[in-house]
């Protein structure tokens, strides 16, 4: 215990030495601004900054990305409260009660609730990262190719099932992502798949240009196509959080923190699911249900705590299984790989100091978020008033720079543009994006482990189903698919329903 605390202290001191403090401040501030601006998401912010910070030492680069991630998820609530437009999809739930509070002249109080809920939620998640990651890593070390194959499939399926929207389209998006990951040279014979003679395509589709396109360019196109944002309220009361709000709703905070962290751990779901689930659970348990949707402090607290607890939660499977818990965490994982880190079960063995650094990064980002949350009110209001016509071309230029930065290939800019249009079309057709991203990220893991498993078993698929853990994950995966079939859940529930003496089901 003392050894762990010592290592954690060492990580804190290391991160905050030199340029560390400055990096924390600008990155968290930039994250909050990205999150606050409608049309710019946490995923886009992390993807852009991954490419732009890759010349930095790895711990400083990851620190910047964690600060952007934490800041952006929090920043989204500002526009949700003031404009009734979520800055990020994660903040959509905060509009339900945040905006009604602002209309009642309580915008400052709503932002105070958002700040305290978000800060406590991330803190709760950080404790879970510190407590659960070593335990889960220990378990994951026993996994072989069979288990990793099913974890990847489970990630796609659960993201499709629970990411919101149509599960069927979620599965198609997930498998489309997996397919895109197979483009380029394959690992066994270096055969160029789907390259059509192009040496650029044979090199594979770069994950980050694809992400910058799917989130950055697609969002620019959507923002320009959509209706203009309405004017913002300019009268703000005190944003200092009230202790009575925190103490009165401590149960909601703990419940939402636990739900948010748990949803973060599940592959590919992310902060929006966490916020909605926490909000729904709080509403079910609330004594003041009638206030929900009309400016409920408890509802806003639940949504903010849930979404912010999800951030550290989504990093847990990255550190233990190399499977991201959310779309921004997928980009963060890609950044770790670019910087030569090895996320997954071996991380705790090879670079245990990085685990303590991640916990320290999250804590530092959470504190910086609290600082800016309490001080940065007026400047954020001005930023929210920047018209999209002036903001979006600048974002587009940054996307181009971001796509080009890592490999200096013009081809990556074309990849970005292609994925920008693809992302735009898929959104218009109501495909959720989280499974697509997860498919892109997990494609390599899935293919390598499927092939390796088949080689180990001499071509038999039996071990994929008969090994205990592998079989259990397979069963959960198949059950998740069946559950999304209309009528299946009702029939299963009917099996367990009590029948009256007459034998007729009620």
């Amino acid at each position: 215990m003392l050894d762990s605390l010592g290592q954690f202290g060492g990580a804190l001191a290391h991160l905050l030495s030199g340029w560390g403090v400055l990096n924390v401040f600008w990155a968290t501030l930039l994250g909050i601004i990205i999150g606050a601006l409608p049309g710019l998401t946490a995923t886009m912010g992390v993807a852009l900054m991954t490419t732009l910070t890759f010349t930095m030492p790895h711990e400083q680069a990851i620190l910047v990305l964690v600060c952007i991630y934490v800041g952006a998820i929090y920043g989204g609530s500002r526009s949700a409260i003031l404009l009734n437009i979520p800055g990020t999809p994660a903040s959509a739930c905060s509009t339900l009660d945040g905006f009604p509070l602002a209309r009642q002249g309580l915008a400052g109080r709503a932002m105070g609730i958002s700040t305290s809920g978000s800060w406590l939620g991330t803190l709760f998640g950080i404790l879970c990262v510190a407590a659960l990651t070593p335990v889960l890593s220990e378990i994951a070390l026993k996994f072989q190719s069979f288990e990793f194959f099913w974890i990847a499939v489970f990630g796609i399926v659960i993201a499709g099932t629970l990411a919101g929207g149509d599960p069927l389209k979620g599965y198609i998006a997930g498998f489309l992502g997996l397919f895109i990951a197979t483009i380029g040279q394959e690992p066994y014979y270096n055969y160029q798949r789907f390259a059509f003679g192009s040496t650029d395509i044979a090199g594979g589709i770069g994950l980050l240009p694809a992400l910058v396109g799917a989130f950055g360019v697609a969002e620019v196109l959507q923002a320009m196509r959509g209706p203009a944002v309405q004017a913002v309220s300019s009268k703000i009361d005190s944003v200092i959080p009230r202790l009575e709000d925190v103490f009165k709703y401590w149960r909601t905070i703990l419940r939402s923190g636990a739900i948010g962290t748990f949803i973060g751990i599940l592959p590919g779901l992310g902060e929006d699911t966490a916020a909605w689930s926490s909000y729904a659970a709080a509403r079910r348990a609330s004594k003041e249900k009638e206030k929900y949707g009309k400016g409920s402090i408890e509802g806003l607290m639940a949504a903010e705590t849930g979404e912010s607890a999800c951030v550290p939660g989504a990093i847990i499977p990255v550190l233990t299984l190399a499977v991201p818990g959310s779309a921004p965490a997928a980009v963060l994982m890609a950044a770790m790989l670019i910087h030569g880190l090895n996320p997954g079960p071996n991380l705790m063995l090879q670079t245990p100091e990085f685990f303590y650094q991640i916990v320290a990064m999250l804590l530092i980002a959470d504190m910086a978020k609290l600082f800016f949350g309490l001080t940065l009110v007026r400047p954020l209001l001005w930023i929210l008033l920047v018209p999209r016509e002036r903001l979006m071309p600048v974002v587009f230029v940054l996307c181009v720079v971001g796509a080009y930065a890592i490999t200096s290939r013009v081809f990556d800019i074309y990849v970005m543009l292609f994925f920008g249009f693809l992302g735009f079309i898929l959104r218009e057709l109501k495909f959720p994006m989280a499974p697509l991203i997860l498919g892109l990220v997990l494609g390599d893991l899935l293919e390598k482990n499927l092939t390796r498993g088949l080689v180990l078993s001499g071509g038999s698929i039996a071990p994929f189903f008969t090994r205990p853990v592998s079989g259990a994950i397979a069963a959960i995966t198949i059950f998740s698919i069946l559950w999304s079939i209309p009528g299946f859940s009702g029939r299963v529930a009917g099996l367990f329903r009590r029948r009256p003496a007459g034998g007729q089901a009620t």
Partner: protein
Amino acid sequence: MADEPLPLLPHEERLPPRSDLWVAAGSLTFSAAILTLTFRMPTYTDQGGQIYTAPGLVPSFYGVVIGLLSLWLAGRALRAGALSAAGKGEPRETGNSNARFVLAAGLGLIFIVGLIGRMPFWLAATVFVTVFVAAFEWQPGLASTARARRFAVALAIGLCTGILVTLVFERVFLVRLP
């Protein structure tokens, strides 16, 4: 409110069944294309390789799954009445503008294909941002002084973007620019 269902996110709203049928047809065609291409790939079994390490195996598995899911989507759309008159769905007022989308996409395309690589990046970025802002803020019937002022603002934003992005990313982040 307490018992009302939570509002849907944009991607949670369903398309009309007819649109879903078109989506299913598109993804089914895509799946067929994947399978056609993967069946043309070598298996390397003649060189002693095992069939389960064949380059086309995994993508063909994805192709089959996408095909099956597309059939499921098509079946669901047909059951929901995709071929009936009501299956087309009612047009909704969303406030979206396709003209604005085409303009934004066209300008982005020109920036990437036409400007980048043909002039210094700072200049390409300046031209793109200036034209983008000026085009979207252009209003018919404005007085020439007001129009000149708007263009000056657009040029200032363009110049700031071009110069700042170049300075910050090339000098501070040491990133190469296209």
